[in-house]
């Protein structure tokens, strides 16, 4: 039952990717910007969770909620300061700014607290139970259930609330949404807030699951979550979830086969194959380009 074990590990990793990928995909869907700083919001969320557990002595759930709230605020600040002015700029200018913001956050955190890694405190017992011959730890069950709950919550917000309706309208057509009386700026900020909160949650979960965090931890998961978003079809919310899970499982299989050093390459190879053969992703529809 080795394979079931690996599958479960892959799904746990994939659900973290999926949570980050959701933020990417929502932001891309609404303002067509690859928010490179998203991986760093994830890192900041992880550190907020770490300090609220170790310094303030909070439990897992209060720390998770605190981290999500702080990241939501952080995401809105980033959007208001850096990206808002670039609404009408070229895509390349926006992309370069996003790279700049990402590096600023990384090295700002290193400047403030140093580059040394931290070990996440062990909040859950290492108990595990057997299921069809595979060892399943309480942690991975918890991670999975938290991510599933957050994704259901996201679906609820996007499809059943007024903000969600506004978000869908703005991502469909900004000008028309504006004419219908939707406050586009606030809607974009709400998108950043929700996406960043999910990244913050992913940060705390990542810390609990992998125990080691450092200021540059967001770079690789951030890029891979982007791969997941592209894989599922960028701008499509269920696509990001599926893409994240697929990527997590593929990576785990690659390392289980004994190519763990090639694990990072696997994600990028998937990215390039997808971009070349099906740039709109698994769930995407081909849109015709108009001149």
């Amino acid at each position, binding site marked *: 039952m080795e394979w079931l074990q690996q599958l479960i590990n892959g799904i746990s990793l994939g659900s973290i990717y999926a949570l980050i990928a959701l933020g990417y995909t929502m932001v891309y869907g609404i303002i067509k910007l*690859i928010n490179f700083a998203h991986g760093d919001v994830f890192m900041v969320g992880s550190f907020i969770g770490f300090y609220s557990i170790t310094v303030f002595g909070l439990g897992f759930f209060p720390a998770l909620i605190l981290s999500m709230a702080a990241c939501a605020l952080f995401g809105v600040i980033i959007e208001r300061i850096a990206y808002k002015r670039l609404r009408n700029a070229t895509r390349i200018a926006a992309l370069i700014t996003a790279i700049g*913001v990402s590096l600023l956050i990384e090295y700002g955190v290193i400047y403030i607290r140093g580059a040394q890694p931290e070990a996440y405190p062990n909040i859950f017992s290492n108990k595990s139970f057997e299921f069809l011959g595979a060892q399943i730890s309480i942690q991975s069950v918890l991670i999975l259930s938290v991510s599933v709950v957050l994704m259901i919550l996201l679906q609820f917000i996007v499809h059943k609330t007024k903000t969600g309706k506004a978000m869908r309208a703005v991502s469909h057509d900004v000008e028309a949404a504006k004419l219908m009386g939707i406050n586009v700026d606030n809607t974009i900020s709400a998108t950043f807030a929700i996406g960043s909160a999910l990244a913050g949650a992913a940060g705390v979960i990542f810390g609990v699951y992998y125990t080691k965090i450092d200021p540059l931890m967001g770079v690789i998961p951030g890029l891979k979550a982007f791969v997941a978003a592209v894989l599922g079809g960028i701008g499509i919310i269920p696509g990001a979830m599926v893409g994240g899970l697929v990527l997590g499982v593929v990576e785990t299989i690659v390392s289980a086969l004994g190519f763990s050093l090639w694990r990072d390459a696997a994600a*990028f190879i998937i990215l*390039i194959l997808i971009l070349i053969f099906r740039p709109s992703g698994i769930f995407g529809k081909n849109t015709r380009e108009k001149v």
Partner: protein
Amino acid sequence: MKKSKQFWPFIIVAVLVYAVVQILISTEIINQFYSNTLILIAINIILAVSLHLVIGITGQFSIGHAGFLAVGAYLSAIVTMKLHLPFVVAIIVGGIVAALAGLIVGIPSLRLKGDYLAIATLGFAEIIRIVFLNIDAVGGAAGMQVSHLTTWTYAFVCLVITLVVIVNFTNSRHGLAAISVRENEIASDAMGINTTYYKVIAFAIGSFFAGVAGALFSHNFYIIQPSQFGFLKSFDILIFVVLGGLGSLSGAVLSAILLTVVSTYLQGYPETRMIIYSLVLILVMLYRPKGLMGTMEITDYFKLWRTPKGGGQHGK
């Protein structure tokens, strides 16, 4: 024509600069530290100009330039250290293999546009880095010992060749075709320009010179490791081009000189350096998205001084 008028003065200035610096180095008026900085400046200018050809002239947004730098660095190191061939051969091999890598990466990924292309090149650069990380013959993560062969002469000759080739390419009809791809790909396609061909050619030439820079780079540092060629290195090269102005060769050269000097002085404070770099990048994009020089060249400013009346339309 214009380029032939500029060619000989450029060569004379280049020879003069070379002679002066070489005399200063051989009479030890400037010490090891400064001559090393000069070599580093030359390498960075080659990198900046090669990326300028891809981003500034052809308008293809590549953020994986460090991958080609890595190819040149490793291949040239293999030529000198394992095959014991002369350094000149190593530079040429590094450049050619990097150009081949550029073709392999460019042909599939240049079908993509804008941010998708950026991400694809980033992905390819990471794959190149991971490949070197996994080849034990080149030392894996521990890196590879390389003897110090790069001198001011090698660096400067490569720099001059790079500048001449890229300036001539830009001014030729091929360069004009590349610029038309940057300005409007669909329109230039409609004018009968083979856009894919020019994009791939520009990418391959850019990769060639990145490989040359890689050869100089690896023989300047005694050791090369895959971690030196990560995303941050690509970003370092990108900021030269962006700060100088997308489409301005002299802007790329100037910002490469400026930022190399700044980062040499901030060597002891790597975080401060990165914070300054990223702030510069954000502020330039927010307040002057064209970069310091826009698409102007230094020589354009000379012309403005000579004929102040005609300057109006160039302004800003």
